Structure formats: structure tokens, C-alpha cells
């Protein structure tokens, strides 16, 4: 397949990308490969691999404390 940019040119560029962008590219490639195989890409990458917020109990506790203080102040 003819491409305007070679893999050798591409790799150094990818190497200096921020981590989040690298992850985004990995997800993009997985999605492309899945599509080529006729697989639903969301079943491969997961809808929320991008922002894993599942184990963030300290943030949740901070917000709960804010709500509790707000409730106290409004009564």
C-alpha cells in the first residue's frame, strides 16, 4: 500500500506525543483493525477506556463532603 509518509518517519513523531495522545492512537488503531475484521469496535476498546474514572473514591468523597456542607448551610 502506497503512503505519503513512511512508518520510519511516523514512529519518531509518535514517540514524542503525550501519553494521552498515544493512548488515543492505540485505540484508533484497535478500532480500525476491528472494523476491518467486522467486529464492533466498542466491544474491543470499551466506551470509556479514555477516561477511567471508576476507582476514584477520594474525588467522590470530596464531592460528598461538599454536598453535606452545602446541606448544613442551607438548613
Amino acid at each position, binding site marked *: 500500500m502506497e503512503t505519503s509518509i513512511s512508518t520510519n518517519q511516523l514512529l519518531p513523531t509518535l514517540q514524542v506525543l503525550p501519553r494521552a495522545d498515544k493512548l488515543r492512537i492505540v485505540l*484508533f488503531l484497535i478500532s480500525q483493525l476491528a472494523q476491518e475484521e467486522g467486529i464492533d469496535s466498542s466491544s474491543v476498546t470499551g466506551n470509556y477506556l479514555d*477516561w*477511567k474514572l471508576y*476507582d*476514584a473514591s477520594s*474525588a467522590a468523597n470530596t464531592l460528598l463532603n461538599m*454536598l453535606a456542607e452545602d446541606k448544613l448551610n442551607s438548613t
Partner: protein
Amino acid sequence: MINAESFTYSQVSDDFGGLNFSPYLPLTLSYGNNSIETSGLLDTGVRYNVMPYQIGLQLGARWEQQNTVVQLAGNLANLPAYGLLITATIAKFPPVRLAFAWTRAENVPLILGQVNFFLEFDVCFFRSQKTFEIQPKKENR
């Protein structure tokens, strides 16, 4: 659910050019004297509500005046976030206070998560029919 409001899934395009149906809930957010109409993605897997930077600004919140730091996880972890209390109105239901992690990130949707959206509302998803129903929590169970 009795007295529930029904909504349809929204068709959204993903980063890869595909189309998905997602449960976006229309709602009005109020902060001080400002209100905006927007929609939030219902996500039972996320521990807390997340507000992208731009929506906080539209509501008139001042980033530099916030003082409750919230430490986020995942790829939002490297960006600062503050707790922000907002009044939200959904359909015909009485307004509720929602606590958001207001992130400096702009490339995330408004996310309605466990704390405290799903503590305030009961939701039934009917994905096969592309609809969901919502009603305020029952106080006395």
C-alpha cells in the same frame, strides 16, 4: 416507573468515525444568576459527575476562585479539577444540587455519575429500545 420521564438515546459519532447511541439527558444547570441548557451523559460506571472546563465558564464560575481540589483518575488525573456545586433541573422534577468535578479538560462530555446524580435519581435503561426513564429518588424506603 410511575411519574418517570422518558428520554431517547442520542446518536453521537465517536472519535473513529463510527456512530453510537448514548443516553444523553437534557438538563438545565444553574450557578449564581447564570443558567444554561445542555445535556449530560448518564454513566453508571463513573464514580462522580464531571464537568468540562468550558461549561463551568459558561455558567460564570471562576476557575481561580475555586479552592476545593478534587483529584481525578485515569487520563484526567494529570489535569487540575475543583469541586463545584450546581443546581440542576431535569424535566418537570424539582431542582437538585449536584456536585461536579470541574476539570480543566475540554475534550470530555458532561458526565453524570454515581456521586451524586445516581444518588438523586433512579434511572431505567432500555437500550434495545434506545430509551431510558428517570425519576427522583424516593425519600422513604
